[in-house]
């Protein structure tokens, strides 16, 4: 069965591109428009991987990650942050929040798929 990925990004063009690329690679994708929406969608179903942007209205990526980690069923789900900054500061914040990894924006679709494959096959 195809693995399901939750893609959270407030930019619809990026979100659609991410979703399209992942679908093309055979994954199922659930899209969410901000952290709050992401949290709601995560509650409605279980997903195999979460990809989240950091800077979003309503709820940012770090808060989303922290909230997800407190949800039953999401303690161990791989979460990757998509960020525009790969600074040590952001990495340590992400790690503290409970993310499993990061991917710096901009990325090309191949890179994204490559990373996702590494994580969930």
């Amino acid at each position, binding site marked *: 069965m195809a693995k399901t990925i939750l893609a959270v990004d407030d930019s*619809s*063009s990026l979100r659609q591109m991410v979703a*399209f690329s992942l679908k093309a690679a055979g994954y199922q994708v659930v899209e969410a428009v901000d952290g709050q929406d992401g949290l709601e969608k995560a509650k409605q179903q279980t997903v195999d991987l979460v990809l989240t942007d950091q800077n979003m209205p309503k709820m940012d990526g770090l808060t989303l990650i922290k909230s997800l980690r407190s949800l039953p069923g999401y303690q161990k789900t791989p979460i990757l942050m998509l960020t525009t900054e790969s600074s040590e500061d952001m990495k340590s914040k*992400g790690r503290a929040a409970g993310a499993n990894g*990061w*991917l710096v924006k901009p990325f090309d679709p191949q890179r994204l798929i490559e990373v996702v494959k590494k994580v969930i096959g």
Partner: protein
Amino acid sequence: MTIDISQFYKVFFDEAEELLAEKERLLLAVDIDSPDPEDLNAIFRTAHSIKGGASTFGLNDMSEVTHVLESLLDRIRKGEMALTAQHVDAFLAAKDILKMQLDGHRNGADVDQEAVANVRMMLHDLSEGVIVPTHQPTVPSFLHAEPKQQVAEGAHRYKIELPDLAKRDVDALVDELGLLGRVSVVPLAAGRTALIIMTHESLDDIVAICSFVLDPSDLKIFEAPPLTPEQRAKEAAERARIEEEQGYGFFDPADPEDAGAHEPTEDELGYGFFQPIEQIRLEAGIVAEAPPPAPVRPEPLEITEVAAEKKAAKKGAEGAHAQGSESSSIRVSIEKVDQLINLVGELVITQAMIEQRSSGLDPMVHQRLLQSVAQLTRNTRDLQESVMSIRMMPMDFVFSRFPRMVRDLAGKLGKKVDFITNGAATELDKGLIERIVDPLTHLVRNSIDHGIEMPAARVAAGKSESGRLFLSAAHQGGNIVIEVADDGGGLNRERILAKAKENGLAVSDNMSDADVWQLIFAPGFSTAEIVTDVSGRGVGMDVVKRNIQALGGTIDIRSARGFGTTILISLPLTLAILDGMSIRSGDEIYILPLGFVVESLQPARADVKEIHGQGRVVKVRGEYLPLIPLYQMFNIEPRLTDPCEGILVILEAEGRKAALFVDELVGQQQVVVKNLEANYRKVAGISGATILGDGGVALILDVAALLRSSRQLSDESVLF
């Protein structure tokens, strides 16, 4: 696997446009002295999102501007720098530049590079040189996508032995595989060919690509041992020779020995994991796949199954493609919509015919047919409403362009203006909306330039320093009423009269205010003492009035000295369909737009009075209204000449009322307006025509013109 992201450009363009508009809105609303942190965050986010998209889609010029912008905004939102008016100006200028760049990418519009440089300089200056050129991730440029040929050492080398293939297929394969890495062609015995590919991509991807051209089971793929330094040198030389031949080439990393020596770091890769990947996978309960088969021996790899899977995946991908391009809106050309509206218009007419013809049938005998006709009527009306709503757009489309204009104009003139809009969600036909922009722009300019006074003058007059400019839209019956109001000095009656005399217009000092205000619609009329570059060149109000009238609308002025001016524009919601009341006079049927009809009545003989030289009037609810006999206007042979035997329809437009004398009321129906001007010529007193249910043609009366002429009414004169 290659993924075409060009289809997302449009999404990005739309999104960026929205973000820019949002950014402008936020910037205009921000309180410079005590900005709301939430607003600053939101402004920052717009720049941030545009930058993210622009860099992903390879629009480097935009990502460069947004990068500078974002850094500055970041410092402001973190409180490292106070927001100043200069900042807001610079941010607005940057918004304009980004819009220009966006249009450049989108429509190939010209981009003023000097202006771009100026704004970037301005933003740089504002950050006072504190911005260190930060680490900007290299931006992949998809617009000018080049094959990813910079293959670092440490990539795999595969030798692919191809079956007997046409040269065309081999070339196609080389092109496709070229996207994965560096490919060279090696001729084999018996006319067959082998490809050597050096790539980071997995074997699966290679097989997947090959499967486009040939059956993967015919392939033999070997993982070739890494090149020895001598081989590498030889290969480089060979490649140089080939590149020489084909006229282009790619540079190797500066020091291949060094590059090959170390694993790419996380920062080079652009991603990283906080735990070993195996641990993440294990904890997430992802079953590890069979150890990757990586025989270094030159043995054919087992690929058939993989290829089959890939084929299936490809099919799945196509399905996903169809799904991915789904969206909540589609773009349709306006011609198609208009054609649809026209067809529905014809359908409405046909339906009316059926309804009319079936009305003579015996309801007992034809009960089921009549039920179906009634249902058809309902469905047609619903269909018509839905189709018409396609063309409706919110007034916000017009209103949203004003805050910026008001701000810039007020700044230029040294005035302070609070701009307030209301009813931006009110919907109006697209055709009307586009044509109302210019007149409204003119009126708003006028209000700021001539209406609202300088701050000092306002304070002296006991008003607040900032003037108020109010723009609103609301539905009123079948019309939309747009109001442009200011609390400025109001119109100057004496000056308008003096100017009108100077221009040779017929005026008298006894004219009512309303008539005096109408004078400013005369061609070439301007009372501005100083002709500014904003307005006051005397081209204007007459054009505004003409444009509004051409849309079937009316324009009205209210003004009080010292209290401001209000301009009211009334427009029909749509030009294509109207609710009409059909009336009969003699043998003719006419349509009255229902919006103008107040009531209809049969007068008592005592209420109809003759006024010498002014025709007849009728007293309706204590009000004397001019009585207009329709048969006189169009020279129709009347059946009735006594108003007390016929029907009076009370009409109201532009604040005037009159009673139209007709023989009888026929009915009320929606009519599809057919333009008389386009099909015949303009006829005074007639605004259009329509086709009736029985196939006959009925003329639609121009009620406003009819009422305007009612003043000069006399029993003998034929109007118009």
